[in-house]
């Protein structure tokens, strides 16, 4: 496959390489991310069988149902070498955890300061009760669904750089779900308007959230890891999370004096941008014009964008009444929806899918 043993042949310099020689770097030099990530996942179809052997690809222990450990049809997309994928963020565990630790420390300090300087006590009861306790807390279930589904997705992904990126993405969403809960617990100390049970009740019963819950159930049920990357990061993020989180919560937090909620969502937006960039790189890789499978992959991705846009639009439109419950609301649903739709369309257009997600 892509990995080439870059060993000098006879007559070349006798000086030994003092770095890994088994990875084909994407750029001129091997990065730390590549060195610690690429070719951790065995590739029975090529990389692990240099020299070929008499029988070629082998499987030491098949799954209980007789299938191989990794399956080409775990996604409808096809690529001759999944190991070529590189996460543009170049995160490996240390850089990723450092990034999240910095974000969490910033949130923790902001919460502590806002508690001690009276900001949390002064928050508007409607903001705390209707937006934070009900809407945002309901949304914690949606974030949890994404965490859940990306765990099996990383298991099935057909390369190590993909799996690792999906692990981090999964962690992003549980972090967000937990941050909502932790903030409300801390807010309870200062503000009596917190009603933690309101979120779950809304999630299960309020018509505003039922299309979102339907989508969350679909997300958990989706097995195709390529589809999840496309659906979650090219559609759900730019459209639905943009409205549910960025427009409703972060967009109105400032007007309601809630710097902490704003801070938390800013960190999730940063994660969302990272995951969007990772998915854009992925889509470009599988639709690269020189690839024989590019046309078929493009058709599949187009199909997914249309299907997921349908789900996401239903879920987003159902949130329209929530805008009316926000105190000091700065934006109408229509404006937020139009902006999110335009931004999503721009993302799709950038990847050559101009019409796929049109409503």
């Amino acid at each position, binding site marked *: 496959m892509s*990995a080439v*043993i870059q*060993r*000098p042949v*006879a007559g070349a*310099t*006798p000086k*030994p*390489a003092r*770095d*890994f020689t*088994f990875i084909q770097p994407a750029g001129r030099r091997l990065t730390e991310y590549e060195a*610690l*990530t690429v*070719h*951790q996942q*065995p590739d029975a179809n090529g990389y692990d*069988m*240099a*020299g070929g*052997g*008499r029988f070629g690809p*082998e499987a*030491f*222990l*098949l799954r*209980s149902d*007789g299938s*191989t*450990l990794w399956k080409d049809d775990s996604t409808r997309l096809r690529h001759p070498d999944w190991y070529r994928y590189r996460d543009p963020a170049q995160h490996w*565990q*240390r850089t990723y*955890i*450092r990034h*999240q*630790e910095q974000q969490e420390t910033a949130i*923790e300090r902001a919460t502590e300061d806002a508690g001690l300087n009276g900001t949390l006590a002064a928050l508007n009861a409607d903001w705390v009760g209707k937006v934070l306790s009900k809407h945002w807390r309901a949304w914690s*279930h949606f974030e*949890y669904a994404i*965490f*859940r589904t990306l*765990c*099996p*997705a*990383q*298991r099935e992904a057909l390369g190590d750089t993909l799996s690792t990126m999906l692990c981090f993405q*999964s962690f992003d969403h*549980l*972090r967000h*779900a*937990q*941050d909502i*809960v932790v903030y409300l*617990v*801390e807010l309870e100390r200062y503000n009596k308007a917190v009603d933690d049970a309101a979120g779950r009740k809304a*999630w*299960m019963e309020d018509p505003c959230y039922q299309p979102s*819950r339907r989508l969350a*159930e679909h997300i*958990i049920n989706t097995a195709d890891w390529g589809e999840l990357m496309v659906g979650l990061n090219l559609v759900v993020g730019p459209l639905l999370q943009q409205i549910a989180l960025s427009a409703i919560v972060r967009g109105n937090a400032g007007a309601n004096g809630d710097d902490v909620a704003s801070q938390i969502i800013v960190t999730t937006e940063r994660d969302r941008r990272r995951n969007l960039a990772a998915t854009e790189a992925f889509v470009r890789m599988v639709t690269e014009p020189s690839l024989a499978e590019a046309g078929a992959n493009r058709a599949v991705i187009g199909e997914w964008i249309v299907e997921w846009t349908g789900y996401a639009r239903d879920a987003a439109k159902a949130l329209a009444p929530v805008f009316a419950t926000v105190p000091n609301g700065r934006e109408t649903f229509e404006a937020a929806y139009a902006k999110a739709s335009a931004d999503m369309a721009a993302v799709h257009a950038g990847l050559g899918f101009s019409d796929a997600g049109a409503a």
Partner: protein
Amino acid sequence: MDSNEFIRAHDRVKDFEWEFSYEPKRAHYPTNYKIPKKTSDPFRHLVRDYCKMERDKDDRQYGAMSDVMARAKMPAKASERWTEILKMALPVTTYAEYAAMKCTGQLVDSVDNAELRQGYLAQMMDEVRHTNQEAHLIRYLAKHARDPEGFDRGFKIRGQNMITRAARPALDAFFACDPIEGAINLQVVAETAYTNPIFVTLTEVAAANGDEATPTTFLSVQSDEARHMANGYATLAAIASVPDNLPRLQRDFDNAFWRQHSFLDSFIGSVYDYFQENRGGSYHEAWTEWVGNDWAGSYIERLKPFGVELPRGWEEAKARIPWGHHNIVMMLAATWPVQFMRIDPLTPRDFEWFEKKYPGWYALYGSFWEAYAKMGDPKDGQIPITLFPQVPPICRVCQMPCVFPRFDQSTVRIREADGRKHAFCSDGCEHLYALEPHRYAKAYTWFEQYEGYELSQFVRECGLIRADGKTLIGQPSLNWDKMWTVDDIARTKIEIENPLRKLPADGAPRLLAPRTLQ
């Protein structure tokens, strides 16, 4: 947050699950086990605390390695005998971590219990951490060790190496089975029984041999393992609390133990006993303490009230412990041209240590090692595998040479089944095959894959040649003045043969011990 708020937050993050209304819930990894929805939470970690904890540990580990250890050139001062085995051992441990990451991804889907799910996510991230840490250690050694060749390409070679490829059937079991069976393989057996011997005791050997990089990495890894053991115990206790699960649990536990023992005991024992220069304890002693007393005597004992007994192969495994790995290292040394490390001959001082720790060792293995020491000069063109009148076949299930419990007392049996001839090293492996023969349909042994290859051809095709384009990575000594080249190997005209072909079907052949050098 005060402690009450922390408890409240923790209770609430368990409450993210809901009953599906719009689609029937799909199990991506169906399990045959019944899992109670409520369990005791093994650890109360929020993502925020987890990030802080891991960042602190990362800073300590990577800081130490990149700062004083590198400046003091410590890796280059470590025992060469010890450093060499890390070329083969570390790509194996790294894959164990990667396989564990896959296992925990499955568990998040399968175990319908929010508190365990979040514990598994932390473990999944830990396993990414450990994969990166151990890959970093290998790269660090490629940069700083006296002989980098082998460290630079271990991940590439491990799949084609006669010994390291045997890691796959054991470690693949973390995520190739029913997800709970995978958890039993990973958390209950591999992590709880074997991570202490690997990540704690082995670091003592490393440190005693001047290697501080491995302990710095491994002890940081091990600091996460206590949480994983707790995850495993919580999973096991939850499953064992449902009486309907017990027959399956015992069966899966039996199988998991045999799979992990088959590889891990030989692997760890070999690294432990044969590559110490400044000698301390033996693997037999470490095994008795950590696996015999702590795991079997305490951990598994606590499961007895649930009806869980010691695994089926326990007594057979126990009998293999004093001798099994000696035979594997003998095979490793006998086939040194296909290895990716230099194998230092044992000295009379080593012989004394082995005889003290394993009474009777010299009578069984002494003559081989004496012969091995005399065969290091390429001018003589002798490869120790020629000492063996009969090369042992490789087991279809565990992929290890069939040399257990001892070469001269091998429990190997040859069988014909499903249109192929198989060697099984033991009753345990034959039993695993009989339970699920379809799972080995694409399992080939190293001899089957490379039968007919001329040895120098294998060495060339598998990238076992150094940067000068002619000298082998593998060498039969640490002597820089007597390095073998691929031309030396070509002159031996040795061809890889599959020993299974010459063995009669449906029998239990007695393997012939190696001849001493005349």
